């Protein structure tokens, strides 16, 4: 617990200082933080609760669209629309979960692809709702306390706050009743029921929380892009990337998804500027390497080794 809080403190300290040290590498840092936040949110459901969703881009899109349309059509400030998006995402997650939580394992994952793809088609085709295929611009934003929300520095701090908030929530949850309920349901639903846990309710709560948090990050992403198109922001590829980030980093660990974001986004950026056309190929090879040599993800594997070492020591002593 203390360790994690120190970790969070380090993240915040480094984060607060970052724009002053690297004022010209903010966009990539924003990507890392957003993916850290999304992957950590995803992990509440996918890692801690064991329900692998491949549809989280829906919530990113939801957040981005709430902010963009709220601003451009109704003049609503992003903090209001982000709160609305989070509430709406939770409601969507509730119904989505009600519909699909009777499915287990790969069937659940496949169903999330289907639901997300249907939502993508709705977002593209229902022009009255989303502005349609041609996308939406965010041309103006309010300036709270004179802060220009279009500046990368302001956006960086928003992304930092988002990632830190999500990680803090996971730290809080991991030690408490809900955190154990999540893991118990992941490990064995019957055994969880024998401990008095309602598996469906637990999964629904996890899905709703995960969805709401993801959509807040989506709202920030909308501001960063300032121009969003439905087929890009609702894309299956984005859903897959979010899941990938968490799994590569280490499912069901507090820092795994964030480490995954750092590694994947960082490596992606490095490969992009170094290998030109071959960059995605190298990226694919990186994924294979992690899967083959760190099957539990980077942090997952480290944590496991740590626990084993600790236990071995105690058994000796």
């Amino acid at each position, binding site marked *: 617990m203390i360790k994690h809080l120190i970790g969070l403190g380090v993240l915040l300290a480094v984060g607060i200082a970052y724009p002053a040290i690297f004022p010209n590498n903010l966009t990539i840092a924003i990507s890392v933080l957003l993916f850290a936040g999304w992957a950590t949110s995803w992990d509440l459901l996918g890692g801690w609760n064991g329900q692998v969703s491949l549809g989280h881009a829906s919530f990113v899109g939801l957040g981005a669209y709430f902010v963009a349309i709220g601003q451009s059509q109704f003049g609503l400030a992003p903090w209001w629309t982000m709160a609305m998006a989070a509430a709406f995402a939770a409601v969507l997650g509730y119904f989505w979960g009600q519909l699909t939580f009777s499915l287990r394992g790969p069937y659940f994952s496949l169903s999330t692809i289907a639901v997300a793809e249907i939502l993508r088609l709705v977002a593209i085709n229902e022009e009255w709702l989303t502005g349609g295929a041609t996308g939406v611009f965010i041309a103006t934003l309010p300036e709270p306390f004179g802060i220009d929300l279009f500046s990368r520095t302001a956006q960086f701090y928003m992304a930092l706050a988002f990632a830190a908030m999500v990680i803090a929530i996971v730290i809080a949850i991991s*030690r*408490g*009743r809900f955190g*154990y*309920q999540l*893991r*118990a349901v*992941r*490990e*064995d639903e*019957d*055994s*969880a*029921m*024998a*401990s*008095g*846990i*309602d*598996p469906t309710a637990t999964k629904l709560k996890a899905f709703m929380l995960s969805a709401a948090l993801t959509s807040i990050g989506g709202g920030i992403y909308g501001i960063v892009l300032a121009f969003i198109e439905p087929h890009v922001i609702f894309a299956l590829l984005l859903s897959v990337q979010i899941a990938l980030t968490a799994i590569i980093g280490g499912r*069901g660990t507090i820092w795994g998804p964030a480490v995954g974001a750092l590694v994947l986004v960082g490596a992606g950026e490095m490969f992009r500027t170094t290998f030109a056309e071959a960059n995605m190929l190298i990226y694919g090879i990186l994924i294979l390497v992690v899967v083959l040599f760190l099957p539990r993800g980077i942090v997952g594997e480290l944590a496991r080794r740590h*626990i*084993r070492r*600790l*236990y071995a020591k*105690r058994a000796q002593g």
Partner: protein
Amino acid sequence: MPNVLRADGITVKFGGVTAVNNVSLSLGSGEILGLIGPNGAGKTTLFNAVTGFAPMHSGRITLLDKDITTLPAFKRTRLGFGRTFQTERPFEELTVLENVLVAAFLTAGRRSEAERLAMGVLEQVGLADRAHQPALDLNLARRRRLELAKALAVKPKVIFLDEIMAGLNPPALREMIAFVRSLSAQGLAVLMVEHIMEAIIELSDHVIVLASGEKIAEGTPHQVTSDERVIEAYLGTD
């Protein structure tokens, strides 16, 4: 003895097959009820039906005069059921302590409180020194005890033990028998499915014998073991 648990006319069907047919039982606090029968007699099915893990065709279940027939398994747990699984089902990725914490959180609101409760139960079953070991690494006897610890940590009024003696070596078996007796001494109602006759005879206040889903005999351990139908059921069909 006042009834803690009553089950009347329990019938379970899978497709066209009747796995349990019109079986009733009742149990008072501090009482130990043994459920025996040859393989495939429907013991575990009855067990699962009563605890809510298998759907019932008909029947009625009450816990402390409250009708719980239609409640899902986790709600029965919350009202006072604790159970073990025949093949142990620890949460493998969690440590021993965390396994019990999951159950302890049912009644404990705060982490510290839950931890105290869990450690207490682990002491009781003799796993306290293993608290921080991954559950995956336990041997069979310790996995059994972990199952028991999980069942006890929900602070049950009735505890359902599904073949917890099977496969234990003689010293471990003695320990387990003593432990179950201590549970009933604490006032817990115990329903146990068991193949080890030694344990049944020694522990049970009352025994129900199932064969092919039917209750064929009921009484004290002594009565049922001398019942001809029971002998026939064990020797004849199995």
